[in-house]
């Protein structure tokens, strides 16, 4: 049912924001193909009238009391940040325009 091409792997890597090397593209294409072949058997048994299960213990509308309490301080929230500036997360440029 599958056969996943090198180009498809490159596309998936792009969707998943993963830079991949040429060597990785070859390796992953082969491995994903084997895995997809093995797992595709799920299609053999799952008939149209079987409802899907997304969660083993179904729970809906779980609420807890809406009480005001302390959250993380600014220092705590920024403590693990790769880069900060003026008490904020500093991020690389997000627009494609010339500076």
């Amino acid at each position, binding site marked *: 049912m599958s056969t996943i091409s090198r180009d498809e792997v490159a596309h998936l890597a792009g969707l998943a924001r*993963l830079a991949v090397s040429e060597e990785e593209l070859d390796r992953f294409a082969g491995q994903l193909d084997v895995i997809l072949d093995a797992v595709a058997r799920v299609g053999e048994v799952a008939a149209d009238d079987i409802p899907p299960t997304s969660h083993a213990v179904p729970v809906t509308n779980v609420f807890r009391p809406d009480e005001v309490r302390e959250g993380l301080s600014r220092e705590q929230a920024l403590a693990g940040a790769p880069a900060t500036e003026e008490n904020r997360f500093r991020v690389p440029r997000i627009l494609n325009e010339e500076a």
Partner: protein
Amino acid sequence: MTSTTSGPEGGGATELTRLTASELAARLASGEVSAVEVTRAHLDRVEAVEPAVGAFLHVDRREALEAARRADEDRAAGRAVSPLAGVPLALKDVFTTTDMPTTCGSKMLEGWVPPYDSTVAARLREAGVVILGKTNMDEFAMGSSTENSAFGATHNPWDLERVPGGSGGGSSAALAAFEAPLAIGTDTGGSIRQPAAVTGTVGVKPTYGGVSRYGLVAFSSSLDQGGPCGRTVLDAAMLHEVIAGHDPMDSTSIDAPVPGVTAAAKEGAAGDLRGVRVGVVREFSGEGYQRGVLDSFRTAVETLTELGAEVVEVSCPHFEYALGAYYLIAPSECSSNLARFDAMRYGLRVGDDGDRSTEEVMSLTREQGFGAEVKRRIMLGTYALSSGYYDAYYGQAQKVRTLVSRDFAAAFERVDVLVSPTTPTTAFRIGERADDPMAMYLADLCTIPSNLAGNAAMSVPSGLAAEDGLPVGLQIMAPAMADERLYRVGAAYEAARNAAAGGALIDRVPQLEVAR
């Protein structure tokens, strides 16, 4: 350097590390030993055997001794303390801790110290349990060997050339090497039970929702479940009661009383299983199963019969599709969950040279921060969820999940618990399956159905395989919210096996060369 100082009763520090958690709890309660002595003995053991085993990613000697001192003070002051106060524990490095790094075995989180405690860590601290450190694991809990850790493999104390299972191989190895009497693991497809089986220890995946996931770094949210690990069924039960119970911070946490698992373990140890109906899963046998594993399983079933249990064969025809469904559902959820590692708010950032865009930095960081297995699963999940393939893969897998749950429901109408081998083979050699993802995935063949259906399951040591002398595990499965059945049957079986074999299996683990 290892301490061999003798205690007042002539029992050396080394002896303290051989005791079970319940034995330690009794000695702590009577005042025979202090939590500081117990903790120091285990820290010394850790120092001595870690060069060979590599179970821990982080050990905090000072904090552990401080926690032990507090447990001693609380006990001396008569402040209500849990039975496990002062007993040391090894915590899988997937639970957030404010006083220690939480890396999930990934370069992505190297050195990261979380701003809040997981509920599991908080409950352990509240109970006075002494957290020795954080244990090694397959990166983000993806794997069955602990070889996928970015910080190196962990070695199985039964044979240092072999894997300790995974993803919780650090926790299982720490138990088998007598570095800690208790450990915490997480089980998404078998990551508590399979490591327990291959190290001759006990591991329990509670009912989904039984233990809070708050502060458990998510891999596959609908499957992830934290649980207790120990060297005996009773120890696992005592730990289970400390960490389980409703948590408003986890919306999938079950709002119901914790099953009386310690009482069940004590009842079971009396060795009477009359009236208990046990189902042997027909599908978990045959090709792909090691002979010694099947022999050990057969003997275990005979033992259950001798204890008075009524044993029947049960067919669960859809279990053979569970592995496929799992390897679509888990990667799909992982591809979504791991999107949070975007190099912006915490963790690694690579290539931020002032010129590259956010998206380029994100891609480079994820390329360098994630290992091969994590990347494979992210791509597999991205594929299974992408338009055009969603129905054929993810949608079908969710239907199989329904069918697996129905198999369990039908079986549990006839029997109280199901049994099978925990894993098809004993511990494999380090490197043996590293380049063959499908071979690695087969290690979880018998454990996965319980994750898909959310029911409770345990692995308890059943013996050594004749051909390689390595431990084999018996898996016991119970319906959701009936975790106490695992402990009753598990403790009865454990007591009978130990009596027949003349001692606990774990006492046969080879002596490790100790660095002095």
